């Protein structure tokens, strides 16, 4: 069951964004507004531009044309409000999860181990694990990657394929965790091919094709939550 998206106060505004890699346009004039505290699932075939859009929102891909505004700032200026999780883990394989998070916490000016331990426990892992992240299972690595993304308590989470190569049980646990974060007021973007996992959880499904947003479908999940 779907209904029209209510027009609230958007926190993210994407205006006519074009992103070209040489002659190939990965994004072809994307225009959209996204409201706070919602769970957006971005879907589409391979090459549709999902990851490029997410990287542009994270400030990792500079639009060739057009603008992106997050809380009224550029993505780079809003970096403290953004948590980014990519398809690769963005972690050092040779260091333990805690060592990784301690280092990344330092980049955000977070002192002490408390916040790192909280983030690791939040994703269901043990901060005492001493082995290197490279020796973790894929599911554990994905969780630790999520812990790194939420370490600085960002208001917006940008997650690229967080459930890929993760078993169904672990994926459902991660979805539950993300649902809890959304309920706590965070805005979540998930790029995924596993739409079924987010059925009843996501507030909106954003469909992309050939570098454009072709459809946005709001679900009843938000109504249930509120």
């Amino acid at each position, binding site marked *: 069951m779907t209904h029209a998206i209510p027009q609230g106060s958007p926190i993210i505004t994407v205006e006519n964004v074009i992103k070209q890699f040489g002659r190939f346009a990965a994004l072809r004039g994307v225009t959209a507004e996204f409201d706070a505290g919602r769970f957006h699932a971005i879907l589409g075939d391979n090459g549709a531009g999902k990851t490029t859009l997410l990287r542009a929102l994270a400030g*990792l891909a500079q639009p060739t044309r057009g603008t992106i505004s997050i809380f009224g700032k550029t993505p780079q200026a809003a970096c*403290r409000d953004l948590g980014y999780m990519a398809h690769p883990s963005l*972690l050092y394989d*040779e260091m333990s999860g805690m060592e990784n998070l301690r280092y*990344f916490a330092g*980049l955000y000016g977070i002192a002490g181990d408390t916040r790192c331990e909280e983030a690791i426990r939040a994703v269901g892992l043990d901060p005492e694990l001493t082995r290197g992240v490279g020796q973790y299972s894929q599911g554990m690595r994905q969780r630790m990657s999520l812990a790194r993304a939420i370490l600085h308590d960002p208001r917006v989470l940008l997650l690229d394929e967080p459930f890929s190569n993760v078993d169904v049980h672990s994926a459902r646990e991660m979805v539950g965790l993300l649902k809890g974060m959304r309920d706590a007021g965070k805005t979540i973007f998930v790029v995924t091919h596993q739409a079924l996992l987010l059925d009843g959880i996501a507030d909106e499904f954003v469909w992309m094709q050939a570098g454009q947003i072709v459809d946005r479908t709001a679900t009843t999940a938000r109504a249930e939550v509120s």
Partner: protein
Amino acid sequence: MSLWSVTFATLKKDIRLEWRSKDALNSMLFFSLLVVVIFVFSFDPLAEESRHIVGGLVWVAFLFAAVVALNQTWARELRNQVLDAYRVSPAPPNALFLAKALGNFIFVSVLEALMTPLFVVFYNLHVLGPAWQLIPIALLGTWALVVNGTFFAAMSLRTRSREIMLPLLLFPISIPAVLGMVAGTTAVLTGDNPAHFYIVLLLTYDVVFTTACLALFETVLHAE
């Protein structure tokens, strides 16, 4: 979160990673050891001749060995795209550059400390000039190599054949520094000329290129 706190946190992390993997140090050590052995077999100079050529041999060996370390430093950041985690953080870009340059400086200095005695023994070297001047020449020369090397290694990070690209970019721009290192070292070893000019040359080179690298690194880091 200051420039220096992030710099030292990143430096500490890099030293920890190197200590665990020993990728850069092992490669550099074996490479320069091979160079020393090959030079020893290729030339069999008298002590007097050695003093004139060792300056060049030593720095060529260290320059080539440093390239190995410089490539390793950034390769570590490419695995699992960890560099993106730094790029999305509010940490100052120059902190990353300084940490990498300082890390490489430490690794290359360790290599020099281990390899210099071998050169002294194999070439039966006796310093005729003021030996203390070798210290500023070594420190300034090493910084000249690593500061440009770290910058150009970052620049060639996203190129397909970065192992080839780095020496192509680094060696031409290092020529003034290499001249200063080689001529300065030879001047001290032979005692023929004072090495002050070469020390000032290296100092000037270091100041100019460190400033330029710091000014341009943010652009390099965020280049796509």
